């Protein structure tokens, strides 16, 4: 490491012709981030914590009320409702999207003609801006004239009034969200291509068919990628906002009112910044706790290759 030690020396000499301590040089280089972090990350986090202990109608000054906002959460029926909705949505979406994206990645990892077209078709929807996706699916889910119910009618089925029914609105949002799985598919595909071939060949020689190879070799080998994607998807799903906000505005009967949407309403519609900040901190702690649970619960299930 003597080389590394040499390293810092002459480099700093040259700064404006005089010796400047390397820490100062380093801090100078990262100063844009330091300023941005202080102003747009650390300060809002501190403010958010402070606001959460106040009554703060946006246009007046905040008044200290201690933990009252947090206490109020427990008696707020809408808080319970948005927790339930967001939990249900996450419970439906995360397993469904994980299974579907692994399945599609495995299919896309086969050697068949036209692979490029298949990969492109699956990936492209994840590039579609969320507002445009919402418009497209509003049209597809239209009870009377939408493509989905028209197609079901061809099969002799009568589709529900998807977004207009409290029972079907949430599943409809899950279905349309499954359209946007390009990113996990790309990650799974990269992981699948790193599965050592000798391992698969050995399993094959031992008489394992394709399904057993998938279950006993491929899935364990890509389990770190699965864990990563499950955590990322869970974190993102718990914060879901734009799709329900645009498609159903939380309705019908609050059946699709999500946590972030309720937080947004409190902050920017009802102007209750204090209460919204308390909601934000609860959300943050829930996300953090769930990530930790997923991380630790996965030990023993996830197989890390020896480096």
């Amino acid at each position, binding site marked *: 490491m003597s080389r590394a030690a040499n390293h810092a020396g002459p480099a700093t000499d040259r700064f404006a012709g005089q010796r400047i301590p390397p820490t100062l040089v380093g801090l100078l280089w990262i100063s844009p981030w330091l300023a*941005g972090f202080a102003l747009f990350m650390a300060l809002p986090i501190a403010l958010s914590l402070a606001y959460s202990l106040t009554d703060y109608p946006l246009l007046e000054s905040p008044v200290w009320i201690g933990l009252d906002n947090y206490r109020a959460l427990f008696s707020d029926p809408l808080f319970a409702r948005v927790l339930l909705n967001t939990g249900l949505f996450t419970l439906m979406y995360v397993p469904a999207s994980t299974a579907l994206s692994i399945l599609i990645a495995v299919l896309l990892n086969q050697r068949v003609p036209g692979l490029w077209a298949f990969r492109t078709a699956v990936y492209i929807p994840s590039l579609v801006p969320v507002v445009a996706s919402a418009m497209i699916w509003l049209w597809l889910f239209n009870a009377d004239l939408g493509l989905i119910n028209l197609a079901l009618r061809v099969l002799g089925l009568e589709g529900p009034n998807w977004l207009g029914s409290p029972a079907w609105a949430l599943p409809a949002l899950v279905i349309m969200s499954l359209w946007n799985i390009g990113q996990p598919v790309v990650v799974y595909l990269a992981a699948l291509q790193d599965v050592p071939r000798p391992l698969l060949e050995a399993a094959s020689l031992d008489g394992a068919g394709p399904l057993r190879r998938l279950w006993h070799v491929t899935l364990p080998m890509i389990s770190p990628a699965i864990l990563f994607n499950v955590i990322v998807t869970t974190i993102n799903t718990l914060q879901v906002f734009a799709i329900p906000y645009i498609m159903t505005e939380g309705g019908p009967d609050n059946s699709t009112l999500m946590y*972030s949407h309720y937080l947004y309403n409190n902050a920017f519609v009802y102007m209750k910044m204090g209460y919204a900040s308390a909601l934000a901190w609860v959300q943050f702690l829930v996300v953090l706790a769930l990530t930790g649970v997923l991380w630790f619960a996965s030990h023993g299930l996830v197989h890390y290759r020896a480096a």
Partner: protein
Amino acid sequence: MPAQRPANPREQPLPGRNAPLARAVILALLAAVALCYAAPLVWMISTSIKPEEQAISRDLRLLPDPPGSTPAHAASNYSAVWTDPSIDFPLYLRNSLLVALLGVTGMTLSTAVVAYGFARIRWRGRSFLFAIVLATMMIPFPVIMAPLYVIFAQLGWIGSLKPLWLPAWFGGAFHGAFNIFLLRQFYMGIPKELDEAARIDGCSHWGIFWRIILPLSRPALAVVALLYFTYLWNDFLGPLIFLNHRDQFTLALGLQLYQSKAGNTPWNLLMAASTMVVAPVLAIFFLTQRTFISGVAAEGLKE
């Protein structure tokens, strides 16, 4: 190497795998999946080129009837959206392009500089601060959005496009951590000997950064620029919170305004507007596919 061997040995079929029947099953499944994923966009375009009475008919057809009338109907729908007095599409497009241009430039330049400080200079506290950079990726945006609004209001930025692009010039502030990480990784793969040679020739850190690191990092910088462009183009929550006047709306907000305006917007026009919002990202994707996919795959390896 035998001629029939595929270039990438990882893609070689396993012995006894891909028998004709299995291949047919895989192809059929892939075709079904691709159809499901392509159908919504195909239907969007199809609806956008039909006259209204055909767009809302129950006949499943891709082109208007008669098919020869397609260019005429398409032209009339798209120009109706472009010139609609209730939404100023050209203005929203201009705002979106402005935000994307300023934001992408700031994000790319500032994270390139910051990553240099983390990758190429040894100093005390570097690892600790880098850990904080990574930790900021865990902070959900909703946690900071209300105080951010207050801060932007104090800075006098509310009422302008600044909240959407200016923070990007500060190491990305709330969306840049991954980019700093990506560029740092890339810089660390550039041989140190290049720096040392340049230093002997009298180059300062800035000289090394500007003449050696930046030119060699073009692929990684392209990934940062591309991913952030799509992020900005797609962003809905940011504009929704920070823009409070129609004159500043971006395309994402404009499209939602168009849908929710009083009196129902005809589906064919709404789909034409959606197509116009989708088209630029798809064009960029097709022009830069390799860079794009490598960036998305890298995002999955950040663990």
